[in-house]
Protein backbone atom coordinates (compact mmCIF):
# COMPACT_ATOMS: atom_id res chain seq x y z
CA UNK A 1 0.00 0.00 0.00
CA UNK A 2 1.42 3.37 -0.96
CA UNK A 3 1.54 6.28 1.51
CA UNK A 4 -1.00 8.10 -0.67
CA UNK A 5 -3.55 5.27 -0.38
CA UNK A 6 -2.93 5.04 3.31
CA UNK A 7 -3.60 8.78 3.69
CA UNK A 8 -6.93 8.48 1.86
CA UNK A 9 -8.01 5.61 4.09
CA UNK A 10 -7.00 7.67 7.12
CA UNK A 11 -8.93 10.71 5.89
CA UNK A 12 -12.04 8.60 5.20
CA UNK A 13 -11.80 7.02 8.66
CA UNK A 14 -11.28 10.35 10.43
CA UNK A 15 -14.20 11.91 8.50
CA UNK A 16 -16.43 9.03 9.58
CA UNK A 17 -15.28 9.30 13.17
CA UNK A 18 -15.83 13.07 13.19
CA UNK A 19 -19.32 12.65 11.73
CA UNK A 20 -20.38 10.07 14.34
CA UNK A 21 -18.75 12.08 17.13
CA UNK A 22 -20.51 15.31 16.19
CA UNK A 23 -23.79 13.40 15.75
CA UNK A 24 -23.36 12.06 19.26
CA UNK A 25 -22.55 15.50 20.69
CA UNK A 26 -25.66 17.03 19.11
CA UNK A 27 -27.79 14.36 20.80
CA UNK A 28 -26.46 15.16 24.28
CA UNK A 29 -28.79 16.96 26.70
CA UNK A 30 -28.06 20.68 27.09
CA UNK A 31 -26.04 22.16 29.94
CA UNK A 32 -27.81 21.71 33.25
CA UNK A 33 -30.44 19.31 31.87
CA UNK A 34 -30.40 15.98 33.63
CA UNK A 35 -32.89 13.35 32.47
CA UNK A 36 -32.14 10.52 34.91
CA UNK A 37 -33.84 10.05 38.29
CA UNK A 38 -30.87 9.00 40.48
CA UNK A 39 -29.05 12.34 40.62
CA UNK A 40 -32.20 14.14 41.69
CA UNK A 41 -32.97 11.51 44.33
CA UNK A 42 -29.41 11.70 45.70
CA UNK A 43 -29.51 15.51 45.68
CA UNK A 44 -32.66 15.46 47.74
CA UNK A 45 -31.76 12.83 50.35
CA UNK A 46 -27.94 12.72 50.60
CA UNK A 47 -27.35 15.69 52.91
CA UNK A 48 -30.22 14.74 55.21
CA UNK A 49 -29.13 11.08 55.37
CA UNK A 50 -25.37 11.52 55.82
CA UNK A 51 -24.83 15.12 57.06
CA UNK A 52 -22.16 15.37 54.33
CA UNK A 53 -22.44 18.41 52.08
CA UNK A 54 -19.73 16.93 49.84
CA UNK A 55 -22.31 14.74 48.14
CA UNK A 56 -19.75 13.21 45.76
CA UNK A 57 -17.88 11.86 48.77
CA UNK A 58 -21.14 10.67 50.29
CA UNK A 59 -21.77 8.69 47.10
CA UNK A 60 -18.18 7.38 46.90
CA UNK A 61 -17.68 6.37 50.52
CA UNK A 62 -21.27 5.59 51.54
CA UNK A 63 -23.83 4.81 48.83
CA UNK A 64 -21.35 2.95 46.64
CA UNK A 65 -18.67 2.40 49.27
CA UNK A 66 -18.25 -1.24 48.29
CA UNK A 67 -17.23 -0.25 44.74
CA UNK A 68 -14.71 2.19 46.18
CA UNK A 69 -13.12 -0.56 48.29
CA UNK A 70 -12.50 -2.44 45.05
CA UNK A 71 -11.08 0.65 43.36
CA UNK A 72 -8.78 1.33 46.27
CA UNK A 73 -7.40 -2.20 46.13
CA UNK A 74 -6.71 -1.78 42.40
CA UNK A 75 -4.20 0.94 43.32
CA UNK A 76 -2.92 -1.11 46.26
CA UNK A 77 -2.26 -4.13 44.05
CA UNK A 78 -0.68 -1.93 41.34
CA UNK A 79 1.73 -0.36 43.84
CA UNK A 80 2.52 -3.79 45.25
CA UNK A 81 3.23 -5.03 41.72
CA UNK A 82 5.62 -2.13 41.07
CA UNK A 83 7.41 -2.83 44.34
CA UNK A 84 7.69 -6.57 43.65
CA UNK A 85 9.07 -6.15 40.13
CA UNK A 86 11.42 -3.22 40.74
CA UNK A 87 12.81 -4.29 44.11
CA UNK A 88 13.75 -7.64 42.61
CA UNK A 89 15.59 -5.88 39.81
CA UNK A 90 17.33 -3.64 42.32
CA UNK A 91 18.72 -6.61 44.22
CA UNK A 92 20.06 -8.09 41.00
CA UNK A 93 21.73 -4.84 40.11
CA UNK A 94 23.26 -4.41 43.52
CA UNK A 95 24.73 -7.88 43.23
CA UNK A 96 26.15 -7.10 39.79
CA UNK A 97 27.58 -3.76 40.88
CA UNK A 98 29.16 -5.32 43.94
CA UNK A 99 32.84 -4.46 44.18
CA UNK A 100 32.61 -1.86 41.41
CA UNK A 101 30.70 1.09 42.80
CA UNK A 102 29.14 -0.44 45.90
CA UNK A 103 25.48 0.18 46.65
CA UNK A 104 25.83 3.34 48.72
CA UNK A 105 23.39 5.71 46.99
CA UNK A 106 25.44 8.83 47.78
CA UNK A 107 28.59 7.64 46.00
CA UNK A 108 29.30 7.54 42.32
CA UNK A 109 26.05 9.13 41.16
CA UNK A 110 26.24 11.20 38.04
CA UNK A 111 22.92 13.00 38.34
CA UNK A 112 22.97 16.44 36.74
CA UNK A 113 22.86 19.33 39.22
CA UNK A 114 19.41 20.76 39.82
CA UNK A 115 19.27 24.50 39.19
CA UNK A 116 18.87 26.79 42.20
CA UNK A 117 15.66 28.21 40.70
CA UNK A 118 13.99 24.77 40.66
CA UNK A 119 15.22 24.06 44.19
CA UNK A 120 13.82 27.38 45.46
CA UNK A 121 10.42 26.97 43.77
CA UNK A 122 10.14 23.38 45.00
CA UNK A 123 11.08 24.48 48.53
CA UNK A 124 8.51 27.29 48.52
CA UNK A 125 5.77 25.01 47.15
CA UNK A 126 6.33 22.09 49.54
CA UNK A 127 4.60 23.61 52.59
CA UNK A 128 1.50 24.89 50.75
CA UNK A 129 1.22 21.57 48.89
CA UNK A 130 1.16 19.64 52.17
CA UNK A 131 -1.50 22.00 53.54
CA UNK A 132 -3.66 21.67 50.41
CA UNK A 133 -3.27 17.87 50.37
CA UNK A 134 -4.15 17.59 54.05
CA UNK A 135 -7.13 19.93 53.62
CA UNK A 136 -8.43 17.91 50.67
CA UNK A 137 -8.04 14.58 52.44
CA UNK A 138 -9.78 15.82 55.59
CA UNK A 139 -12.65 17.73 53.93
CA UNK A 140 -14.24 15.03 51.79
CA UNK A 141 -17.46 15.42 53.79
CA UNK A 142 -17.79 19.17 53.25
CA UNK A 143 -16.40 20.05 49.80
CA UNK A 144 -15.64 18.52 46.41
CA UNK A 145 -12.45 16.85 47.57
CA UNK A 146 -11.55 13.59 49.20
CA UNK A 147 -8.92 11.08 50.15
CA UNK A 148 -7.84 10.26 46.62
CA UNK A 149 -7.20 13.85 45.56
CA UNK A 150 -5.65 14.74 48.92
CA UNK A 151 -3.43 11.66 48.87
CA UNK A 152 -2.04 12.39 45.42
CA UNK A 153 -1.40 16.05 46.31
CA UNK A 154 0.43 14.93 49.47
CA UNK A 155 2.52 12.56 47.35
CA UNK A 156 3.50 15.42 45.02
CA UNK A 157 4.75 17.30 48.12
CA UNK A 158 7.25 14.48 48.62
CA UNK A 159 8.26 14.71 44.96
CA UNK A 160 8.87 18.45 45.56
CA UNK A 161 11.14 17.52 48.46
CA UNK A 162 13.11 15.36 46.04
CA UNK A 163 13.34 18.29 43.61
CA UNK A 164 14.36 20.75 46.33
CA UNK A 165 16.96 18.48 47.85
CA UNK A 166 18.11 15.18 46.49
CA UNK A 167 17.16 11.56 46.40
CA UNK A 168 18.60 11.02 49.88
CA UNK A 169 16.23 13.64 51.29
CA UNK A 170 13.31 11.91 49.56
CA UNK A 171 14.37 8.60 51.07
CA UNK A 172 14.85 10.14 54.51
CA UNK A 173 11.35 11.67 54.62
CA UNK A 174 9.72 8.57 53.10
CA UNK A 175 11.60 5.44 54.23
CA UNK A 176 10.36 2.42 52.28
CA UNK A 177 9.34 0.47 55.39
CA UNK A 178 7.22 3.35 56.69
CA UNK A 179 5.64 3.97 53.26
CA UNK A 180 4.76 0.28 52.94
CA UNK A 181 3.22 0.26 56.41
CA UNK A 182 1.21 3.46 55.84
CA UNK A 183 -0.12 2.11 52.55
CA UNK A 184 -1.18 -1.13 54.21
CA UNK A 185 -2.84 0.73 57.09
CA UNK A 186 -4.73 2.92 54.61
CA UNK A 187 -5.98 0.01 52.50
CA UNK A 188 -6.69 -2.18 55.52
CA UNK A 189 -8.35 0.64 57.43
CA UNK A 190 -11.00 1.14 54.74
CA UNK A 191 -11.82 -2.57 54.74
CA UNK A 192 -11.73 -2.63 58.57
CA UNK A 193 -14.35 0.14 58.76
CA UNK A 194 -16.63 -2.11 56.71
CA UNK A 195 -15.89 -5.19 58.80
CA UNK A 196 -16.48 -3.25 62.04
CA UNK A 197 -20.01 -2.54 60.83
CA UNK A 198 -20.49 -6.27 60.22
CA UNK A 199 -19.19 -7.04 63.72
CA UNK A 200 -21.85 -4.68 65.08
CA UNK A 201 -24.51 -6.68 63.26
CA UNK A 202 -24.96 -4.14 60.46
CA UNK A 203 -24.46 -4.61 56.69
CA UNK A 204 -20.90 -4.17 55.40
CA UNK A 205 -19.72 -0.53 55.33
CA UNK A 206 -22.79 0.78 57.17
CA UNK A 207 -22.14 4.23 58.60
CA UNK A 208 -21.97 3.27 62.28
CA UNK A 209 -20.43 6.48 63.65
CA UNK A 210 -22.34 9.53 64.83
CA UNK A 211 -23.23 11.82 61.95
CA UNK A 212 -22.68 15.02 63.95
CA UNK A 213 -25.25 17.78 64.34
CA UNK A 214 -24.34 20.34 61.67
CA UNK A 215 -24.36 19.21 58.05
CA UNK A 216 -21.11 20.29 56.40
CA UNK A 217 -19.06 20.47 59.61
CA UNK A 218 -15.68 18.72 59.46
CA UNK A 219 -16.74 16.49 62.37
CA UNK A 220 -19.94 15.42 60.59
CA UNK A 221 -20.78 12.45 58.35
CA UNK A 222 -19.40 9.61 60.50
CA UNK A 223 -17.50 6.98 58.53
CA UNK A 224 -17.39 9.07 55.34
CA UNK A 225 -14.69 11.29 56.86
CA UNK A 226 -12.91 8.29 58.40
CA UNK A 227 -12.85 6.34 55.12
CA UNK A 228 -11.63 9.43 53.27
CA UNK A 229 -8.75 9.68 55.76
CA UNK A 230 -7.77 6.04 55.18
CA UNK A 231 -8.03 6.48 51.41
CA UNK A 232 -5.76 9.53 51.71
CA UNK A 233 -3.14 7.45 53.54
CA UNK A 234 -3.36 4.61 51.04
CA UNK A 235 -3.24 6.75 47.90
CA UNK A 236 -0.51 9.08 49.18
CA UNK A 237 1.70 6.17 50.26
CA UNK A 238 1.02 4.24 47.04
CA UNK A 239 2.11 7.14 44.83
CA UNK A 240 5.18 7.87 46.99
CA UNK A 241 6.07 4.19 46.78
CA UNK A 242 5.69 4.02 42.99
CA UNK A 243 7.61 7.25 42.33
CA UNK A 244 10.24 6.25 44.91
CA UNK A 245 10.82 2.90 43.22
CA UNK A 246 11.10 4.57 39.81
CA UNK A 247 13.53 7.18 41.19
CA UNK A 248 15.55 4.38 42.77
CA UNK A 249 15.68 2.51 39.48
CA UNK A 250 16.72 5.59 37.51
CA UNK A 251 19.43 6.68 39.92
CA UNK A 252 20.83 3.20 40.53
CA UNK A 253 20.93 2.52 36.82
CA UNK A 254 22.95 5.68 36.22
CA UNK A 255 25.21 4.57 38.99
CA UNK A 256 25.67 1.19 37.36
CA UNK A 257 26.26 2.53 33.85
CA UNK A 258 28.63 5.30 35.01
Amino acid at each position, binding site marked *: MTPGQRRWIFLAAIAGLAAFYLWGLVGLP*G*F*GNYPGPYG*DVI*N*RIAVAQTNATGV*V*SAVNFEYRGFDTVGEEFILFVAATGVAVVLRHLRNERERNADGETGDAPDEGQRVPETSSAIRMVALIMTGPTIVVGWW*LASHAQTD*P*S*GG*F*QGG*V*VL*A*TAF*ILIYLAGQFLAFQRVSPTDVTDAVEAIGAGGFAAVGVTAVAMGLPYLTNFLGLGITPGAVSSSGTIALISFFVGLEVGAA*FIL*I*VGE*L*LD*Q*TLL*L*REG*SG
Partner: protein
Amino acid sequence: MTPGHLLAVVTPYTVPTGLMDVLQVTVLVLVAAAATMVVVIRVPVRQVIALSVYGIALAVLFLVFQAPDVTLSELTVGAVVLPIMFLLALAKVRGREK
Protein backbone atom coordinates in the same frame (compact mmCIF):
# COMPACT_ATOMS: atom_id res chain seq x y z
CA MET B 1 -43.54 15.85 41.45
CA THR B 2 -43.66 19.21 39.69
CA PRO B 3 -40.70 20.83 37.93
CA GLY B 4 -40.89 23.70 40.41
CA HIS B 5 -40.37 21.24 43.22
CA LEU B 6 -37.15 20.06 41.56
CA LEU B 7 -35.86 23.61 41.11
CA ALA B 8 -36.20 24.20 44.84
CA VAL B 9 -33.51 21.55 45.38
CA VAL B 10 -31.19 22.11 42.41
CA THR B 11 -29.03 25.22 42.58
CA PRO B 12 -30.14 27.63 39.84
CA TYR B 13 -27.46 28.39 37.26
CA THR B 14 -26.27 31.98 37.16
CA VAL B 15 -24.35 31.51 33.89
CA PRO B 16 -26.54 31.52 30.75
CA THR B 17 -26.64 27.97 29.40
CA GLY B 18 -25.82 29.15 25.87
CA LEU B 19 -22.57 30.61 27.17
CA MET B 20 -21.77 27.33 28.93
CA ASP B 21 -22.31 25.45 25.66
CA VAL B 22 -19.79 27.76 23.97
CA LEU B 23 -17.34 27.24 26.82
CA GLN B 24 -17.78 23.48 26.71
CA VAL B 25 -17.21 23.32 22.95
CA THR B 26 -14.13 25.57 23.29
CA VAL B 27 -12.58 23.34 25.96
CA LEU B 28 -13.44 20.18 23.98
CA VAL B 29 -11.58 21.61 20.97
CA LEU B 30 -8.69 22.57 23.27
CA VAL B 31 -8.48 19.01 24.62
CA ALA B 32 -8.56 17.59 21.08
CA ALA B 33 -5.77 19.97 20.05
CA ALA B 34 -3.65 19.04 23.09
CA ALA B 35 -4.19 15.33 22.43
CA THR B 36 -3.16 15.80 18.79
CA MET B 37 -0.01 17.59 19.97
CA VAL B 38 0.93 14.59 22.14
CA VAL B 39 0.62 12.28 19.13
CA VAL B 40 2.31 14.58 16.59
CA ILE B 41 5.37 15.50 18.69
CA ARG B 42 8.02 12.85 18.12
CA VAL B 43 10.69 13.80 20.69
CA PRO B 44 9.84 11.76 23.81
CA VAL B 45 10.80 14.39 26.41
CA ARG B 46 8.77 17.09 24.66
CA GLN B 47 5.98 14.57 24.25
CA VAL B 48 5.85 14.16 28.04
CA ILE B 49 5.56 17.95 28.48
CA ALA B 50 2.73 17.93 25.91
CA LEU B 51 1.11 15.10 27.88
CA SER B 52 1.22 17.29 30.97
CA VAL B 53 -0.43 20.16 29.05
CA TYR B 54 -3.06 17.68 27.85
CA GLY B 55 -3.66 16.68 31.48
CA ILE B 56 -4.26 20.32 32.44
CA ALA B 57 -6.64 20.81 29.48
CA LEU B 58 -8.54 17.69 30.52
CA ALA B 59 -8.73 19.01 34.09
CA VAL B 60 -10.29 22.24 32.79
CA LEU B 61 -12.73 20.13 30.76
CA PHE B 62 -13.88 18.29 33.88
CA LEU B 63 -14.28 21.61 35.70
CA VAL B 64 -16.42 23.04 32.89
CA PHE B 65 -18.52 19.87 32.92
CA GLN B 66 -19.15 20.38 36.65
CA ALA B 67 -16.95 17.67 38.13
CA PRO B 68 -14.54 19.63 40.37
CA ASP B 69 -13.50 16.51 42.28
CA VAL B 70 -12.48 14.78 39.06
CA THR B 71 -10.64 17.99 38.12
CA LEU B 72 -8.49 17.64 41.23
CA SER B 73 -7.68 14.01 40.45
CA GLU B 74 -6.85 14.73 36.82
CA LEU B 75 -4.72 17.74 37.75
CA THR B 76 -2.53 15.71 40.09
CA VAL B 77 -2.46 12.39 38.26
CA GLY B 78 -2.62 13.52 34.62
CA ALA B 79 -0.56 16.70 34.82
CA VAL B 80 2.00 15.75 37.49
CA VAL B 81 2.40 12.11 38.46
CA LEU B 82 1.98 10.43 35.07
CA PRO B 83 4.49 12.77 33.30
CA ILE B 84 6.95 12.23 36.17
CA MET B 85 6.71 8.46 35.69
CA PHE B 86 7.32 8.85 31.96
CA LEU B 87 10.28 11.19 32.58
CA LEU B 88 11.83 8.68 34.99
CA ALA B 89 11.31 5.86 32.51
CA LEU B 90 12.95 7.97 29.78
CA ALA B 91 15.88 8.78 32.08
CA LYS B 92 16.32 5.07 32.73
CA VAL B 93 16.27 4.20 29.03
CA ARG B 94 18.71 7.03 28.27
CA GLY B 95 21.05 5.84 31.01
CA ARG B 96 21.07 2.37 29.46
CA GLU B 97 21.89 3.73 26.01
CA LYS B 98 25.00 5.56 27.23
